[in-house]
Each structure stands twice: as C-alpha cells, then as structure tokens.
C-alpha cells in the first residue's frame, strides 16, 4: 500500500511538472511549484512512516514554513511588477 501511495504521488508530481513547464504566466508556475512542494512533503512523511526512520521529519517542519513564505513573496512580486 505504501508503494501505491508513492506511485500516486509520483503521478501527481509528473502532472505538476507538466504545468510548471507549460504554464503561461508566472502565477501558473508558482501554483505548480506549490503542488510539487506538497508532493515532496507527502513523500517524506510516507517514507518515514514506512521505514520508521524519523531523521527527515524536521525537514518537513522547515518545508511547511518555507514553501508558503516563498509563495507569498512571489505574490508580492507579481503585484509590484506591473
């Protein structure tokens, strides 16, 4: 079941990567990057639960803070650019 979860997350990452490459505007690419961050968080948590090795879990805390802060910064950039 863990393998199925990781495969589904990989498929989602592929779709987000397509949007990241195609996306016409900067906001589209930010949305796709946000999705990739979410897929990474889920993969780290699933792997830690599968192997019972919690070494990467503090990384999860850092990602969960840094990702939205970066998104907000790019939002301010989009606002101020025009």
């Amino acid at each position, binding site marked *: 079941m863990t393998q199925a979860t990781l495969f589904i997350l990989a498929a989602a990452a592929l*779709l*987000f990567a397509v949007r990241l490459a195609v996306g016409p505007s900067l906001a589209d690419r930010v949305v796709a990057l946000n999705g990739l961050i979410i*897929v990474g*968080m889920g993969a780290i948590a699933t792997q830690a639960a599968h192997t019972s090795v919690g070494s990467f879990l503090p990384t999860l805390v850092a990602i969960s803070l840094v990702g939205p802060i970066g998104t907000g910064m790019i939002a301010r950039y989009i*606002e101020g650019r025009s």
Partner: protein
Amino acid sequence: MIGEALALFGAVLVLLSAIGVLRLGDVLARLHALAKASTLGVLLLLAGAAVNLRDLNDLTSVVLAGILHLLASPPASNMISRAVYLVEGVPDSALDERREPEPDHTV
C-alpha cells in the same frame, strides 16, 4: 494499516488536485483546485504517517508540520489569488463582486 489507508487517500486527493491544476482553464481556477484539495491531502498524508510512527520525537515533528502547513498555506494561496486579481482581473464570464458598479447617468 489504518495509517497506510489514510496516506493512500491523501495521495489520491493530491493526484486529483494535480489533475485539476493541469486541466482547469485559468489561474484562479487552478489555484482553487490546488488550495482546497491539497491542504486536506497533505493533512491526511501527515496523519497517516503520525499513526504509524512510534517515537514521540517524530510524532511531534509531524504534528508541528501539519499545524504550520495549515496556518501558512491558505494565506499564501490568498496572496497569490489577490495578486492575480489585481494584475489581470477575472474573466468576463465570472462573477466579480469587488468590481465598482457603473456610474448611473440617467437620473
């Protein structure tokens, strides 16, 4: 077992939001697909991990990551949608409650 089921459900939600991000028409619709489904998806993935972890140290890390994500992710989505609205506006077919009404010159 129940933790793996929770993680699988969360992964399916993340996949659904990825399909929405790929297929929906404009930026605000894609943001809507990502912000709603993937917040719940990440929380379910973290809950599935938290059920299976035994060490209290790992457990607190997962719970803290979930709380911080729940606090920080919706305002970031709101900031992106606000920036897109201020720069590009919304499509003409969409309801825009914030637009100024046309001035009435008939009176």
